[in-house]
């Protein structure tokens, strides 16, 4: 029995409550999210539908010409299962128009541009519907920095950012995410046949067990080695967490005054709510 096992009914209750409270208290009723066809956004979509009513959730699928057609069909499947509003906004014209000027751009630049293109569409629809943009990054990818800053990492609220991928799988079963979406291999879908685990070089289950001990239980290296993790694996994951930390913080502000935003000017975001 893994230590990562969670009481899914309890977590479902906490996350549905979180979405209701944090959205309603700012005077909004609606939410907007990108549906990729993957499990993370599918889970957020189901939670949002339960929290706000499916008619108040706008899910947008934003494929590029190289996206796997199965992704769009899975996104539709999720939208149908959860009953949310669904639309498709392709990003090929915008992305291609840009890279016509930079034809030598590599896959990373192209992937980041696509993620940021999708972000601008979501925030535009946020203004259109008066809904908050929901983040769909899980704790594993947030810790590893496996996401695009100001792209898929941008949102107003993220209900699943404190759940490891392994826990996302568990909760997805509980809320009724369609089976094919739960069972397929996780993929950023930037090119045909890409899978996260091949690109990362380890499985989510392996890294989640390590991250849980390292981050949540604050185990030191000796303890991790004793638990059976290889020294190189521990070091490489520690470096990934450390080197991606800038992605999890606001931009650094040079201090000049006596009271600098986020340094000694400190208020909760829910100030007055």
């Amino acid at each position: 029995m893994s230590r990562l096992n969670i009481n899914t009914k309890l977590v479902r209750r906490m996350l549905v409550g979180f979405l209701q409270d944090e959205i309603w208290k700012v005077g909004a009723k609606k939410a907007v999210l990108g549906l990729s066809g993957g499990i993370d956004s599918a889970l957020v979509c189901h939670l949002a539908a339960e929290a706000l009513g499916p008619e108040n959730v706008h899910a947008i699928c934003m494929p590029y010409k190289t996206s796997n057609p199965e992704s769009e069909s899975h996104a539709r499947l999720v939208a149908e299962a959860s009953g949310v509003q669904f639309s498709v906004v392709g990003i090929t014209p915008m992305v291609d128009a840009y890279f016509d000027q930079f034809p030598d751009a590599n896959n990373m630049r192209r992937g980041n541009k696509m993620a940021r293109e999708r972000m601008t569409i979501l925030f535009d629809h946020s203004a259109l519907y008066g809904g908050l943009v929901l983040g769909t990054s899980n704790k594993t990818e947030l810790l590893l920095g496996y996401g695009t800053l100001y792209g898929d990492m941008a949102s107003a609220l993220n209900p699943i950012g404190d759940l490891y991928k392994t826990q996302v799988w568990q909760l997805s079963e509980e809320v009724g995410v369609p089976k094919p979406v739960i069972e397929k291999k996780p993929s950023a879908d930037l090119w045909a046949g890409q899978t996260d685990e091949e690109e990362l070089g380890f499985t989510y289950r392996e890294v989640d067990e390590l991250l849980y001990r390292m981050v949540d239980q604050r185990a030191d290296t000796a303890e991790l080695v004793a638990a059976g993790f290889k020294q190189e694996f521990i070091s490489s994951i520690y470096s990934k967490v450390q080197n991606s930390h800038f992605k999890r913080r606001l931009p650094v502000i040079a201090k000049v005054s006596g009271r600098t935003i986020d340094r000694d000017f400190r208020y909760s975001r829910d100030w007055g709510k």
Partner: protein
Amino acid sequence: MDFSVALLQIKPKLGRVADNLALIKEQVEQAIVQKADLAVLPELALTGYFLKDLVPEVAIGLDSPEIDALKELSQRISIAVGFVEVTADFQFYNSAAWFEDGELKHLHRKVYLPTYGLFDEQRYLGRGDRFRAFDTKFGRVGLLVCEDMWHLSAPYLLAMDGATTLVCLSSSPGRGVDEQTLGTATAWRNLTTSTARFLTCRVVYVNRVGYEDGVGFWGGSHVVAPSGEVIAAAPEFDPAILQVSLTDAELRRERISSPLVRDENLCITLRELSRIDQERSC
């Protein structure tokens, strides 16, 4: 004396004193309608919890109109409530007040200010310096604010000072979900039930609900009998009013069958504490 307590498990708004006072009044009125004798609200019910730099902005003095309003309300029901207190020399405290018969009967300033993990209280607030039991219509009472309860000496001192009812006002964030339970909820229930049993006191625990910056306060307010048995509990995460009747018979029975408080030897405790203090000071 037998009495009925209403645990008002509310969802305060962060930094909105006027709105929260209105909510508290409405809830206390409801408790009056339900014929409760005592209404207990959570820690910082008047302000919300993660205040940070808002502390000076939401703090009220003991001569403020808000305190006057609560005094007035207490003509009809006794009230325990949490707020940020500012003193004449501009010290700020996480305080709990007991209002009865139109008066401020007792004020407790939170002593143990958690400053670790997700907590940062000592950065913004001053530390209280005493635990004192006090007499009420319902016998002798000890007030605690959240983290105070986690220091064994605090409920112990109150019980030694004669308290038979311990009232704990809390803003406890829910965290640590495993396969079975919510870690904080389990820990708190272990704490309140053990404290009640060790000290043969009733424990009234009132926690808030609602979310602040993603942190969900888990509610689950409850009352523990002097036997350590949970008599009644409010739901987790939802606002609620939980009304519970408490009898002297129950307290009497437990104090007869488990005379732990009678047998507690203050002299040994004091002597050993003095010795420890001396040895530490050397």
